């Protein structure tokens, strides 16, 4: 709570800068329009015009807010909450790809981490490649993965989820390897004096002590898999999803649509990461770790 006032100040400053930038960036077009109409603009008229253009260079926050309301709340109120024009529909499409990719990526990441911790050969041969795999800009391959998987008959959710999976498994592997190795020598020796089997050591010592690491990686992985899903939607020809809205908006110069899709994506990211944070708090509290 101590941070509330500073954070609010910063947020207000961001909005103020946004409004000012909207005036500055949209002014040439407003002046141009006034010149053709043979009039000159007072300052207040200029401001009013720059904040209410149809296709502004930078839409003002209230325009974006109105667009978001028109494509979510207003459509729900009129009973068309899930129509193809509503952002709820597009967010749902993106969310389902993100969630599937996230689950697959987390599963793969945990499996790889267990293999790496328990098998020396895998540790030495796979780990360097896991790190190298992330220096490759995987998003660059996204269009190709989509096209190729389409050609072999896999379409819809799975190709997008694959990209999300590739992006989200890495933080999980790195975090889980660290987490599974976090028990001290003393604790491992203690398990041995109790004659614990490797499975018991895993379930009762290694896995519980890796939980804080797992949740930190899950947050990063979730954000990454949302980016993967959005980029994965770009080459599908703007069919559905937040990425498709971005692409369609950029084709037709609909800046307000781009910004509203962007804000929705940001909200989605915040909600998903926040959800993991809540689960983390509950789990760690019940385990007595927080």
């Amino acid at each position, binding site marked *: 709570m101590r941070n509330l006032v500073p954070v609010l100040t910063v947020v207000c400053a961001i909005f103020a800068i946004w409004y000012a930038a909207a005036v500055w960036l949209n002014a040439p077009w407003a002046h141009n329009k006034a010149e053709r109409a043979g009039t000159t603009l007072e300052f207040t008229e200029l401001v009013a015009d720059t904040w209410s253009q149809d296709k502004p260079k930078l839409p003002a926050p209230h325009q974006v807010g109105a667009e978001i309301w028109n494509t979510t709340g207003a459509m729900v109120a009129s009973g068309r909450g899930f129509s193809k024009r509503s952002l709820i529909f597009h967010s749902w499409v993106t969310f389902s790809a993100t969630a599937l990719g996230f689950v697959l990526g987390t599963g793969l990441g945990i499996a790889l981490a267990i293999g790496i911790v328990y098998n020396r050969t895998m540790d*030495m041969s796979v780990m360097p490649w896991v790190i*190298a795999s992330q220096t*490759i800009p995987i998003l660059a391959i996204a269009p190709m993965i989509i096209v190729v998987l389409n050609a072999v008959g896999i379409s819809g959710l799975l190709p997008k989820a694959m990209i999300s999976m590739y992006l989200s498994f890495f933080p999980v592997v790195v975090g889980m390897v660290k987490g599974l190795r976090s028990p001290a020598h003393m604790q491992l020796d203690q398990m041995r004096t109790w004659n614990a089997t490797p499975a018991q050591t895993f379930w009762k010592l290694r896995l519980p002590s890796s939980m804080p690491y797992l949740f930190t990686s899950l947050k990063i992985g979730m954000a990454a898999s949302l980016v993967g899903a959005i980029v994965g939607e770009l080459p599908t020809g703007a069919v559905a999803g937040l990425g498709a809205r971005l692409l369609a908006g950029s084709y037709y110069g609909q800046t307000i649509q781009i910004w509203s*899709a*962007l804000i929705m994506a940001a909200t989605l990211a915040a909600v998903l990461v926040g959800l993991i944070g809540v689960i983390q708090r509950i789990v760690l509290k019940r385990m007595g770790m927080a």
Partner: protein
Amino acid sequence: MGWLAIGLGAWLGGWWLNHVLSHRPATRLTRLAVPVIFGLSIVVIWESLVRGLEISPVLLPPPTQIAATFAAKTHILWEDFVQTVIKGALTGYILGCGAAFLIAVAIDRFPFLQRGLLPVGNFVAALPIIGMAPILVMWFGFDWQSKAAVVVVMVFFPMLVNTVQGLQDTSAMQRDLMRTYGAGYWTTLLKLRLPAAMPFIFNGLKIASTLALIGAIVAEFFGSPIKGMGFRISTSVGQLALDLVWAEIVVAAIAGSAFYGGVALLEKAVTFWHPSQRGRS
């Protein structure tokens, strides 16, 4: 059938060799050899699977074909490399990281700004910033300037958050010692706090190095002149020239690894005193 047998042989052989090597005492040579053998056997398995199962090169070209395309089209690849990596990614990286560093040093003087900006910065760093790409392309035009702008926006917040955190990473004892020496703000900053912040700064620089390439390439999907790696990838996918796409991916992988490796080497030279670097020699 023969190709499949070779693939199986490469798999078993590579596995066995790595098993033997990894159970011997680790030297620098085995540390290097094991991942290399793993990578090589993957490439051989790929090649033999594609040939053995007669997968169409339109779906997945074999590595030899990719290598041939790579050798034949070096001039195109070089042109794209200059456009995307040197002009787009590198310019944006330097501008973005430099600006983030300077602003971090500036806001470090004001605890109020620090407490306000850190949560917001952490929040923004988790957002899908890449979505800004179409807007920035609209503002800065199709050429490399807009790609550099996307990279600036992408690297800015991770770098800012890391630098601010790093600058706080000194203990009260150390700062008190500087005060007993009669050191002012600037001396303390240069001699104590910046060196102490270096591990964090390099962490930010490393994260930013992978983000920079991604940003530059993806921004080209939203419009670009008729060169650049992102442009080449999206158009070649349309023409089903997947061997060229893979060649671009190889370039991207080499550039990405070299970029990251360069930053890591620099880190090793600058933060040689840090426990995470001291352990391994």
